[in-house]
């Protein structure tokens, strides 16, 4: 299965600023997925990132708030923009390495103050 390095592991940010999260995969993958997990909740898919094309966003998530880059087949970034306390969550990236299934990065715990 794939190994994903996700950075930063945690951060505390001021309102109105932005945070960029990076995920590096140890092998080439077609699709990368970005999730948000609000406190005490399950995982919600933000968007799917394919190399060479714009990300596909799920309902309720927009590119202006969550811009995503996918410059190559092993790397992606998610930026959470114009931060508010409601953005305090764990953010996770994921890849699908069939037949092993989905593997997740270690997560980024964001606190907005």
């Amino acid at each position, binding site marked *: 299965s794939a190994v994903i390095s996700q950075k930063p592991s945690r951060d505390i940010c001021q309102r109105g600023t932005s945070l960029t999260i990076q995920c590096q995969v140890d092998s080439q993958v077609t699709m990368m997925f970005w999730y948000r997990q609000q406190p005490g909740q399950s995982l919600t898919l933000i968007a799917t990132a394919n190399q060479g094309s714009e990300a596909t966003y799920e309902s309720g998530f927009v590119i202006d708030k969550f811009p995503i880059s996918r410059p190559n087949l092993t790397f992606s970034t998610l930026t959470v923009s114009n931060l508010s306390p409601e953005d305090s969550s764990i953010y996770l990236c994921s890849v699908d390495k069939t037949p092993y*299934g989905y593997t*997740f990065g270690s*997560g980024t715990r964001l606190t907005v103050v």
Partner: protein
Amino acid sequence: GIQVEQSPPDLILQEGANSTLRCNFSDSVNNLQWFHQNPWGQLINLFYIPSGTKQNGRLSATTVATERYSLLYISSSQTTDSGVYFCAVESGYIPTFGRGTSLIVHP
């Protein structure tokens, strides 16, 4: 979209006890996985099990795809088993997560 229901939502055990966690899903799936989220938030892949039975140490899982459910068995539980267990199913190419079962194992 597909619905995923996990039960029970919360479970408290004494060390050494056995437990069964259930995942029901509303439609045919291509893939089903069980994850353990530890207290630090990391998601660990336990089983990739779209059908059949698998075992890994004290853990085992069974998926009956025709009846749209999966079971995760934890035997001889340990305090390190504490955390949230998620079932995720894939219909198409996007996985959908259940709400999880929160497990606390007391020494």
